[in-house]
């Protein structure tokens, strides 16, 4: 394969995006349509990864990487399977109340790992289905069925039940013990979930739920930047993969004279500032060596300058500036910030690829690289295989940067428009009617 560092910016983006997207056809069950969490053997399906997969088929069709009919069949297979899956809420079902367990058996759709019924991962799943629904707009029988199935899956989600009588939505539920007794607190990727929950035509939560959630926001001046704090990079990206936040503002952002897109740009800069300071003295941290996010890192060892070594965290959501930080960088999370800060992101990606070529396999980015933990040959520790979430966010955010396709599709998506309005978003494209261009 061509050395990615030698490619032009455009070719580099194309190469990394295509390789990222190819994760999905390679890791999709041919019958159930479920998508594996990772490329590792016996990986179960992550319903969030399935959502990312659905959302990337439109871009793959547009770029000629897959035939449209083939793409429709792949999405249809999964949506049919999800429609027919066991929604009894039993310990081995696929879901309950329209929500799905976080991890499902690839063959049967049964819950695995005693995972929780996950509200956020269901939101990502259905956001992906709605993206496909918006793109596959032909009047053919298959595409008509696809749209009906996406609507059905979205509309049967009982968001109100997920509040458990509280002001905000619970994080999860288990058949053995009921709702997890903690909620979404602070700014996070849950903004997409709240928008979909408020935009539901069947089980919409009231607008004050969104207000209750934003009460936990923290507006901070950090390293000279004013921003809505969240530590890991992925928090500043996941909702943005679907929603074009440029120029639209909720009450909070109106007060702060900012918007969530600008906020993600500042969060990207703050990541860079943190790495320049490198408080734990990890190897490889500098202005072009950053990217703390949810990813897999090493485990079972201590990392860092000997006296102040940090325990390695395994798979964890690493964040800036309060940590946790064990020296593991997520290159996919850097690349996924491309729409927000193209110049510093491309510089960092090129640097990371040049320094750690071992972080790329089959053209795809590994989830985590830890330069502080080196093998005998001096190569950085690299997480084996690939994670579907990384490939999904990379494929989507590169597409948004390159063509804006997903943002355009979702700007016209009625549940998203309705949910945003109910959450108090105003201005920008939301003030205009959905245009033909949006469709």
């Amino acid at each position, binding site marked *: 394969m061509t050395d990615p560092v030698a490619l032009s910016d455009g070719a580099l983006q194309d190469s990394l995006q295509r390789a990222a997207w190819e994760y999905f056809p390679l890791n999709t069950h041919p019958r159930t349509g479920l998508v594996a969490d990772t490329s590792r053997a016996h990986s179960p399906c992550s319903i969030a990864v399935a959502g990312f997969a659905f959302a990337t088929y439109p871009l793959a069709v547009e770029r000629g990487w897959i035939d449209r009919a083939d793409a429709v069949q792949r999405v249809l297979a999964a949506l049919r399977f999800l429609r027919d899956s066991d929604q009894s809420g039993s310990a081995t079902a696929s879901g309950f109340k329209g929500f799905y367990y976080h991890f499902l058996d690839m063959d049967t759709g049964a819950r695995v790992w*005693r995972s*929780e019924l996950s509200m956020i991962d269901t939101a990502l799943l259905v956001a992906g289905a709605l993206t496909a629904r918006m793109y596959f707009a032909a009047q053919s029988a298959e595409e008509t069925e696809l749209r009906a199935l996406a609507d059905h899956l979205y509309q049967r989600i009982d968001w109100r039940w997920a509040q458990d009588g509280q002001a905000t939505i619970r994080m999860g539920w*288990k058949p*053995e*013990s009921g709702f*997890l*007794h*903690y909620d979404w*607190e*602070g700014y996070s990727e849950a903004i997409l979930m709240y928008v979909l929950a408020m935009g539901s035509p069947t089980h919409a939560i009231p607008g004050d739920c969104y207000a209750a959630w*934003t*009460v*936990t*926001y*923290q*507006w*901070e*001046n*950090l390293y*000279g930047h*004013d921003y809505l704090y969240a530590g890991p990079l992925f928090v500043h990206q996941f909702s943005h993969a679907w929603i074009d936040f440029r120029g639209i503002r909720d009450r909070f952002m109106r*007060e*702060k004279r900012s918007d969530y897109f600008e906020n993600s740009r500042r969060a990207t800069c703050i990541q860079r500032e943190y790495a320049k*300071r490198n*408080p734990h003295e990890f190897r490889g941290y500098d202005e072009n060596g950053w990217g703390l996010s949810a990813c897999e890192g090493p485990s079972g060892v201590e990392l860092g300058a*000997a*006296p*102040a070594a*940090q*325990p390695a965290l395994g798979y964890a959501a690493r964040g800036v*500036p*309060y*940590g*946790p930080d064990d020296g593991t960088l997520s290159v996919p999370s850097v690349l996924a910030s491309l729409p927000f800060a193209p110049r510093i992101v491309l510089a960092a990606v090129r640097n990371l690829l040049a320094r750690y070529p071992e972080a790329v396999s089959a053209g795809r980015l590994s989830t985590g690289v830890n330069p502080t933990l080196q093998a005998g040959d001096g190569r950085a520790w690299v997480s084996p295989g690939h994670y579907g979430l990384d490939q999904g966010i990379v494929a989507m955010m590169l597409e948004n940067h390159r063509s804006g396709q997903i943002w355009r599709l979702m700007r016209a998506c009625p549940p998203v428009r309705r949910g945003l309005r109910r959450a108090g978003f105003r201005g920008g494209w939301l003030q205009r009617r959905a245009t033909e261009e949006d469709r």
Partner: protein
Amino acid sequence: MPQPNARRLTTPDDAHERARIADLRPRAWVNPEPEGRYPLVVVGSGFAGLAAAETAAARGIKVALVERSFIGGTCINTGCVPSKAIIRTSRLYAEMRDAARYGGQVPGSIQVDFAATMERVRRIRAHLGQPNSVRRLAAAGVDVYFGDARFVGPDALTVGGAKLRFDKAVIATGARPNTPSIPGLAQAGYLTNENVWDITKLPPRLLVIGGGPIGCEQAQAFCRLGAHTTIVQHKPLFLEREERDAAQILSTALARDGVEVRLNTRVCGVRTEHGEKRVDLISDDYKNTIAVDEILTGVGRIANIEGLDLASAGVECAPGKGVGVDDFLRTSNPCIYAAGDVCLEHKYGHTAIASAQMAVRNALFRGREHWSKVIIPWCTFTDPEIAHVGLYVREANRQGIPVKTFTILMHEIDRAITDSEESGFVKIHVREGTDRILGATIVARHAGDMINEITLAIVAKIGLRKLAGVMHAYDTQAEAIQRAARACERALAPTTA
């Protein structure tokens, strides 16, 4: 008040303990004979009771002070004082193990002398008890009565067979450790922050129940002294009132010390088998059992109101909430006030003293001071310490106050770096668009000292910008406050076209 189900332990009988008893609960003490009606009777002699008695006596008021146990109450005998003493020793051992961090050499063999640690605790609390000795109180004009107080009317109580009549009274009976209702816990026996000072042998395996300030402080201290310590907290984070970033840093710090952190976990049963305590834990739907030698509970404190017969005095109270007071610290009986842990939400030594002084001024000197206007800082004395004053961001948001936080990381501060104490931050919350300080949270090794500057600024209505111009000595960690102030100054500076 002793815990009904906690393990009964006897404090080692050494010179320090004998001195403490001689000062704070002399065995040969004979209660005085009441000489008529007292202008003020104070029930309870912890920090609140002592402050009330001393405030009144200093103004020439004749005071009766009633205590059922030791003068000094929780803070001196079983709370703040012994707790800080053991925390300091545990920090010493942690630094010995961590010597390489400071360019030092780790001693070849680090043997914790637990007996010496506890002997130091007893010495310090005996020493700090001296200024509050019964003799000194009597010399200051305070009549000290030992015994159980019981109200017998709106202006009278009995103690040890004597009836004390009063014009005004202050109830300052404090609080005691809450007892978690866990099947088998009482039978197995447990320690609390009151009786843990009486153990003579470090438990090899310790379970701490509760992730509030007491639980976190004790878990870290005993872990650093060498106990294999597990802490169980039913919430997803420690210190649920504090900002989540502070709590997250604390979780990391505890884990780094070697504490086995079990968040989002409950204790659902305890039993004794083969001489060890087997504890059943549940986290969501995952159950497991751990074996420990001792269990220490730290799940909050409840007011001591039992036995006072408050109804006879017309004082309203609620089980679990303590004595009800208005904003002037007055109970439902206008002649009776309350102060300290028995009536306050914020149960700290400094709030006990401040509330007692306010109660006395309001009761005896026509004061009209409002407790709600008092600015209260507090600190959890873990390493790093976590200190707070004023509003939290979520409180400001709920009140519709636009808030902006100026954050300085300790890893930006020279002194924190030279001391290898980079973990933590200073966050100062201001009203958006102004420099009016709403509150602050500091996570730093000496956060408890640093928070006082912010408290002063809030009380004196000094804007954050003003602090930018206040010279801070270099090289100190408090420079972080000045850095935050400078950031505020820059943010509010008029922009040039």
